[in-house]
């Protein structure tokens, strides 16, 4: 009985996974191979051609999504790392205040925040209207309905998910380790590059994971901030599911996206040598 206890305790989570992850995924895998329409019903025909059709029609949007997701992730890293570093090492006793300020915008819903960006970036809005009034920008300058707006929106919306894991990793760095580096005649750059940065890599890894995946799949930013050539794969999946009731194509696209993201993450983990990084962190 004692040997079984941990398994019994874990049972609820296994059930949870089975009911809410495995079954829906399996159902989706099944639907992605069916043919038919919503009115007459769908039947299983094992048409793997659904995948080829979906990819043939929407490869542009899929590649674009990965590109936007990648761009936004790099931007978040560039902006987020210094912020996390500053809070962890220079935040002093106000650390929690800074973290709270960082999270404050997240008390407002995701869609509303994105729409507010639309107001902020309006052609004659608060920002550009004023700059145009001063003659600093040409009259037909605009950011809304461009790639910049979409990638900017993605960066803004997912930034805390990059900052927080990096912060947690940096926070755990023992200041004495850094001191030791200086004692051994490391310059400030060398101490950062060879001590702090490697120690924070698990945080960077988690941050990239937690931002790249949702940013790539996001439909909201492209819809609210994008223009005629900014449609992302999330928008396509939404349209296929809700408007066209084309469940097989939508499922095939969802699976393709999932596969592409998973492969990307594994390559990334290998490239970063996560195992070594973890060992370094554990020491």
């Amino acid at each position: 009985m004692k040997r079984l206890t941990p398994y019994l305790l874990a049972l609820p989570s296994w059930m949870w996974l089975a009911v809410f992850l495995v079954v829906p995924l399996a159902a989706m895998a099944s639907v992605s191979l069916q043919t038919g329409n919503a009115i007459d019903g769908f039947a299983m025909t094992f048409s793997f051609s659904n995948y080829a059709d979906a990819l043939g029609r929407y490869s542009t949007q899929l590649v674009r999504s990965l590109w936007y997701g990648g761009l936004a992730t790099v931007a978040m890293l560039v902006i987020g790392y210094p912020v996390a570093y500053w809070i962890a090492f220079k935040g002093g006793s106000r650390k929690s205040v800074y973290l709270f300020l960082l999270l404050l915008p997240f008390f407002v819903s995701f869609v509303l925040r994105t729409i507010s960006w639309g107001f902020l970036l309006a052609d004659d809005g608060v920002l550009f209207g004023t700059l145009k009034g001063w003659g600093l920008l040409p009259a037909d300058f605009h950011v809304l309905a461009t790639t910049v707006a979409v990638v900017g929106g993605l960066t803004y919306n997912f930034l805390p998910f990059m900052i927080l894991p990096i912060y947690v990793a940096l926070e755990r760095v023992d200041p004495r380790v850094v001191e030791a580096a200086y004692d051994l005649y490391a310059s400030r750059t060398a101490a950062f590059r060879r001590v702090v940065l490697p120690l924070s890599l698990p945080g960077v890894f988690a941050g990239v994971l937690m931002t790249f995946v949702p940013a790539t799949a996001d439909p909201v930013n492209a819809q609210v901030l994008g223009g005629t050539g900014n449609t992302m794969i999330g928008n396509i999946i939404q349209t296929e599911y809700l408007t066209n009731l084309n469940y097989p194509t939508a499922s095939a696209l969802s699976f393709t996206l999932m596969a592409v993201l998973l492969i990307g993450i594994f390559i990334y983990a290998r490239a970063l040598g996560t195992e070594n990084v973890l060992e370094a962190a554990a020491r």
Partner: protein
Amino acid sequence: MSHLHDPAFLRGMTQPRTRREAFRIAGLSAAGLALAACGVQGQKAAPPKADAVKDYWSKQTKHGRVVFANWPEYMPEDQAPLKKFQSETGISYQYKEVIQENAEFFGKADPVLRAGQSLGYDIVVMTNGVQLQHMIQLGYCVALDHSKLPNFAANAGATYKNRAYDPGSTYTVPYTSGVTGIAYNTKYVKDDITSIEALFDPKYKGRVGMMGDAQEIANFGMIALGVNPEKSTEADWKKAGEKLKAQRDAGIVRKYYDQSYIDAVSKGDIWVTMAWSGDVFQRQLAGEPVKFVVPEEGGTIWTDNMLIPKGAANPVDALMLMDYLYQPVVAAELDEFIQYVTPVPGVQDILKEKAAKATGEDKEALEQMVASPLMFPSEADYAKLHTYTTLTTQQEQVFNPIFQSITQA
């Protein structure tokens, strides 16, 4: 957040799985696959038999409560018409503004109704179009008992009793109608726009808004080509698609909009756009520099319809509320607020009388409403207005990709 940097967590995410583990996971998925392989059932419904309808209604009784699901800004804030209904009939109501978009609403309702469960609403309002068609085809609407709709019979306009998408008003009665035309911002556009060609004019490059909805944009593409959308063929759709693609590739279109076009045109992000009449009229009254026209080549008219979804708990009460809204006085009160086209023609006279008695700003606003072709289109206006194309499921599979490949490139 501590688990984020936990080495065990990351290792779990990244370490290679052993081969045995991989097989185990595959086995689990296969079991799920077997569960799900039976496919998604279709539920195409045959037209209702008169007996079955009679039988259904004979079993229903009044319950004294009704739940009404509607779109935002479709009811005065004080809900006066509903309150009056409650005090006159003793039926208590719940009013929920839960419908924002037809596709989204249908997407949420479909699995529930497919499983034979109740939505929890007794009346829902949907626009004529693909989703309403699906609701009817799938048997998701209760056939109405017209012996309990005397006000509808007496007061609804002839056009609103005879609608191509629901002949004989078997399943639906109109709530309100509106016109899709062109709106422009008078601060930036100094000419009077009269033609649909304004939407294709290189002069407004990057300042034109088009709608993302396949039906809406297809209609305007066809009207611009001089084709009547109601009688269009596949060849017409393709030609319209080419015209709209050329418009996009020339950089004339800024964005394919949903409801957000109205903010964009009043802020000046776009100058000329496809638009829904009531939105523009409400903005005009709020003093914003926007103007609405029905292009001389034509526009479209759509109708939001009330229906009783299958499995509704209180169908008799729902039918009573539907009919109540067709009393001219009640319809007038509603229309004064929502400012779209009412299905009850008698409203115009009531508002005229009210304007004669009113004073000051109220009088002015009411007179404006009575005279507005956006609220009370004339015969000549109606002649220019086309309705949506009714598509079969097979046609939809041709129609949608043509226009979605433009709006979602």
